[in-house]
């Protein structure tokens, strides 16, 4: 058992499963000798050979399309998109094919595949490297969109993603790739997809987040506690399909909800969560549903990215506004 980072956990999960399941193949740009630009696939080629850990030509539509073909043959491709900002050339394959193959063939062809991509801001990356566009894929029925917030979850959820019989978009919040370490036993135990984690119990307000923003959210809960406000904290983890029941249960208890996300506010995953609460638990609400978000503007280049991203104090502020709402 070793203390490892989120990205090492992703790597460990892949190595674990590749050992057991010969159908798993890893491919993408620079995933081979180089081990991925963030080293997510570090050592995998050395261990499993260039046949199973494949450097591809530079073409994302190709990566997704080829993964679909392989998966339809029963292989289990793990395709890496180098940064989520470069997933769009593959959008047609993901939306028009990945999400639909099982349904349109009535279960004859299925696509047990994973598309991994680092995402989100905060690491001073160049343009197009820092966006949070999970909402786009979360809107597509037939996909699962999973976002781990810490090393243990990365390990368990990645295992589940690889074992899932359907396509999973696995988004890795790169800002927290190396922010903390967890002791992880490489025992192959997965965390179920499609399930929220309640990370902290509380009674006054429910804070709902996922991915990197979980860190700010948990810190905010801590600060709120110091001010006598008891926040329940939920890590959504699978942003689609949403485990809305866990969220509703919490909100029914606390009567207040605040969603924290890095993406621009309009039409984001947070809107979906808020809408579900507004439809199904409004009678339990004692205050407006808050959303602490990125702004509805382009993710700025890195000199301004701190100005763009939600901070602990913004969450605290909004949570207090909601709790104090009369």
């Amino acid at each position, binding site marked *: 058992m070793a203390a490892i980072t989120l990205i090492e956990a992703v790597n460990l999960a892949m190595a674990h499963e590749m050992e057991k399941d010969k159908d798993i193949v890893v491919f993408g740009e620079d995933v081979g000798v180089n081990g991925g630009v963030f080293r997510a696939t570090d050592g995998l080629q050395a261990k499993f050979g260039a046949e199973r850990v494949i450097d591809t030509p530079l073409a994302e539509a190709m990566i997704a399309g080829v993964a679909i073909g*392989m998966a339809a043959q029963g292989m289990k491709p793990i395709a890496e998109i180098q940064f989520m900002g470069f997933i769009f050339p593959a959008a047609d394959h993901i939306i028009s094919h990945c999400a639909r193959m099982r349904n349109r063939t009535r279960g004859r062809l299925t696509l047990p595949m994973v598309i991994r991509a680092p995402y989100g801001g905060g690491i001073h990356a160049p343009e197009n490297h820092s966006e949070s566009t999970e909402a786009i894929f979360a809107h597509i029925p037939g996909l699962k969109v999973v976002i781990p917030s810490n090393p243990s979850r990365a390990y368990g959820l990645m295992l589940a993603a690889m074992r899932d*019989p359907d396509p999973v978009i696995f988004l890795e919040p790169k800002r927290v790739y190396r922010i903390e370490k967890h002791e992880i036993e490489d025992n192959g135990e997965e965390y179920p997809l499609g399930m929220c984690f309640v990370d902290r119990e509380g009674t006054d307000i429910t804070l709902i987040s996922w991915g990197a923003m979980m860190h700010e959210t948990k810190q905010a809960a801590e600060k709120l506690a110091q001010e006598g406000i008891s926040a329940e904290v939920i890590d959504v983890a699978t942003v689609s399909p949403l485990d809305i029941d866990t969220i509703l249960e919490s909100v029914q208890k606390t009567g207040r909800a605040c969603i924290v996300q890095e993406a621009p506010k309009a039409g984001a995953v947070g809107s979906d969560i808020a809408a579900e609460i507004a439809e199904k638990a409004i009678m339990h609400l004692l205050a407006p549903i808050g959303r602490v978000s990125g702004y509805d503007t382009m993710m700025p280049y890195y000199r301004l990215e701190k100005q763009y991203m939600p901070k602990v104090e913004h969450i605290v502020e909004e949570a207090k506004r909601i709790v104090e709402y009369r």
Partner: protein
Amino acid sequence: MTTIAKFEVKYQQYLDADGKLKNKKAPAIAKDFDKLKELYRGMALIRQLDTKAYALQRTGKMGTYPAATGQEAIGVGFGAAMKDEDVLVPYYRGQASMVMHGVRMEEVLLYWGGDERGSDFQNEKARQDFPIAVPIATQSLHAAGVAKAMQMRGEKRVVFTEIGEGGTSQGDFYEALNVAGIWNLPVVFIINNNQWAISVPSEIQTACETYAQKAIAAGIDCVQVDGNDMLAVYQASLDAAEKARNGGGPTVIECISLRLCDHTTADDASRYRPDGELEEGWKKEPMVRLRKYLEANKQWSQEEEDAMQAEIVAEVQQSVDNYLNTPVDTPESMFDYLYAELPERTLAQRELAIARGAK
């Protein structure tokens, strides 16, 4: 300047428009009359299927349907070159190859009739074949992926995929050729050059002299054939398949034909097709020429033609009946194949759909 690379595109035709064997070095298929009759019958079947589908559409019993009139030699020819264990990744006007590789005609009708069960191919041969890809050119990449899986598993199987000449303008087509080249994949790319992409003629689709030469951009082999000449299509397909099966990598086969029908039932080609094109086209179409060749070789008679047509009409009618007799699927079928297991969140919607459907 020094020349550092040279390429050429070759063209193959055996049977001319009059069904005469033009080419001295005709392949074995030219004398395999049983096979040729089978191929002729395949074309007749597809033409009848298209005719019926059109009629169904015109009477409100079918959705938009893309006939392959005049291009039957392409799909039938390469479809016949496939082995059972090979995989077909068709394009949307792909009924000819699909039926040749075991897809039932009623499945083709169900698909265009708006029923997902049309892509749940029941025949074992077609069980791994891809459903039609409506988004043009995406299938080329899926074909590469299927071929990659076969290659990794050391199987001696080949993938065939078809695309329209218009579809070759999509980046996906090129990306597929490129990856097939670099990985030396067992895949055959058939370009169905019917000279039209809906209303867009080749002159405004590309500046290329041939579509075959697009293979050069990926460093892979190519050939152009007369797509109305069954012998040329079949033989080129067989050769390419053989090569791929033995580790020789991918091939692009451009088959030149002409769309002798509207783009689909939703189209009116008279808006854009130049006068006389159809008349000229019908003189070169693939069925008559193969029939003439068979007749010239005393292998076909009017009686055989009549008998075959009667058989085909009955066969297609049976498929039409099966199609028409398939009741609309249940509302819950919208949900039951979305994931292996329907998410909690969607269960209530499934119930709602059932309740609403019952009204």
